[in-house]
């Protein structure tokens, strides 16, 4: 499939990109159904009684969920946007973007955003790479394969709160990690209160998430057409070439999804940090959620709203960018 010509106004190109996202979503969300839908492109035609009935039924089934989601998520989010634009909930003076500027200049916010970003930039590629390695190992001939799969998946089921004591034993100043490293002559590090504070958390994050990612990659690998691989082998391609040029390309949508999920999970790492270090962690462990929690405590709605809106916009941009990247790389595989 060739890319459409890159001409026309920017608006047109944005619309095109939007269509591509739509196509991608539809491909992912409903597979065969989109074809059925395109059979009837005449959306503006008068609806037959049958169509009217179908629409009514459809909305009846949808209503509990749509009402609930609107009440608990969507409508209050509009209020959040409104709050982020006024000076205080009593006077309701419209102040433009000054709340955003205030939050963006807030040192605690910057620290939290920086730490969260730093953590994600290290943890997400590691989570994707290592789980891909595990999946590739698991894909080949291996004894006790299903046993191994269960072992790798089990950390996902263990509540974080259950293993924090073990992590504390490992990474305390007098803990096991230091005893172990001491054998190689390394000095003692107070892991959770030093520049290395993110290391134990990254390990905990990987421990919990690798199995989940591995399952996704295993499913992706199993979906690669066998004949492609056989042809490559007949053409005497090396395993290395097969991996990079065929498998990784076919996995591109899986890699996208695993990256998105890892990113989202890396935003949730507050949970691990909170359980291990409480309300006031070491500086480099001060995450976005810590900032939000503290702001909740002071009930500063304006700060809270502006921060939430900024995060939402950031997430939409990141996820959109990932989708577009995947679309560009994975397009010719259909």
């Amino acid at each position, binding site marked *: 499939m060739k890319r459409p010509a890159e001409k026309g106004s920017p608006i047109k190109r944005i619309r095109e990109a939007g269509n591509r996202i739509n196509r991608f*979503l539809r491909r*992912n*969300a*409903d597979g065969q159904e989109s074809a*059925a839908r395109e059979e009837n492109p005449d959306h503006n035609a008068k609806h037959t009684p049958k169509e009217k009935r*179908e629409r009514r039924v*459809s*909305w*009846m*089934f*949808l209503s*509990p969920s749509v009402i*609930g*989601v609107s009440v*608990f998520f*969507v409508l*209050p*989010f509009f209020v*959040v946007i409104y709050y982020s634009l006024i000076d205080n909930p009593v006077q309701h003076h419209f102040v433009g973007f000054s709340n955003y500027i205030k939050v963006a200049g807030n040192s605690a916010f910057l620290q939290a955003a920086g730490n969260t970003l730093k953590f994600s930039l290290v943890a997400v590629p590691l989570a994707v790479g290592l789980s891909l390695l*595990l999946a590739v*190992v698991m894909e080949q001939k*291996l*004894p006790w394969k299903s046993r191994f799969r269960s072992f*790798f*998946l*089990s950390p996902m*089921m*263990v*509540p*974080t*709160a*259950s*293993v924090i*004591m*073990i*992590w*504390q*034993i490992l990474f*305390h100043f*007098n803990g096991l990690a230091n005893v172990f490293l001491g054998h190689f002559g390394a000095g003692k590090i107070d892991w959770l209160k030093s520049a290395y504070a993110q290391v134990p958390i990254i390990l905990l994050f990987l421990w919990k998430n690798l199995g*989940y990612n591995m399952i*996704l990659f295993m*499913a*992706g690998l199993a979906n690669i057409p066998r004949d492609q691989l056989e042809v490559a082998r*007949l053409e005497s391609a*090396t*395993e290395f070439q097969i991996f990079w040029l065929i498998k990784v390309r076919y996995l591109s949508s899986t890699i996208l*999804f695993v990256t998105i999920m890892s990113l989202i999970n890396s*935003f949730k790492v*507050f*949970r691990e940090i909170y*359980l291990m270090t409480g309300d006031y962690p070491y500086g480099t462990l001060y995450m*976005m*959620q810590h900032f*939000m*929690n503290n702001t*909740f405590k002071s009930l500063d709605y304006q700060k809270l709203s502006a921060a*939430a809106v900024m995060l939402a916009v950031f*997430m*939409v941009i990141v996820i959109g960018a990932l989708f577009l990247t995947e679309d560009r790389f994975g397009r010719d595989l259909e």
Partner: protein
Amino acid sequence: MKESSMKESSGGGFFRRWLAGKDLTREDLPRKERPAGRFWTKNRVETARMVVRTLLAGFFAVLFLLPIILTVTNSLMTPQEISANYGMIFAKRNGVRVFISETVNLKFIPDIVSFGQYFKVLILSPEYLMKFWNSFIYVVPIVVFQLAVASLASYGFARYRGRVREVIFFAYIILMLMPYQVTLVPNYLVANWLHIMDTRWAIWLPGIFSPFAVYMLTKYMRRIPRSIYEAAEIDGAGEWQIFTQICLPNCRGGLASIAILLFIDYWNMVEQPLILLTNDQLHPLSVFLSRINADEISLAFAVAVIYMVLPMMVFLYGEEYLVEGIVYQGGIKE
């Protein structure tokens, strides 16, 4: 594969060729180590690679299982043994330093196997059981009712389609991808308006209407062939009958998978109770576990084990569903 490797049997180092997955011949070994006969037969190479893979997988498996095993064995130790092993680490927690051993002492097998901790947790101190009950009472209604709301909504999305519904479904996906830092602010506002702050409803309601199950189930339902519905329609089944007797039974596997994923997620929750519940009495076990102080640390291990028994049971009986659910989430299996 055979021909190609014979064609190129010379050239390239041993390691490179091994990585490339070629059959190794005796020429591949350094001259010094080259055996007299053809030692690296195809079978031997295959075995050698399998051993390497098994070792790699085994190494990861040990790393993954160690924290779980340690938690279990520690829960069987007497308080004296725990403080002798980890005295340095947990003694610091409430400010009192009790020097028992300089460094941490890792032990896998307890000196005396004692179930005293469990006896204390389960019978003598009801507060732990209270928190366990809290965790339970949050999770079960959320899983049950989110599935109920979602199965209705998914039927609405999957059975008939329209442009507006398509847009709403896309909005659900975006909402699903938002981190807690964003969604908790609207949740907090609504809880405030409805005066359900500090009650269980503040956790239940946003949980029940969370869009995750809708997204998953819709994908699942869209794979049910349309002809099944049409056949039922011709036989004179009403919409509700089609839903309960055709659609839902076909989704049994999907419902189980989603229930497991939801269960893990809410069993492990920390962020929501911290913000929506200021009353400690209502906190689930996850938050409570991190607050257990040093002199009760041996109890903490027992509580941790009790806390992970339920998810582990779910895992034991539902691993296939869990894997299926993860794969569905990835949208790989279309």
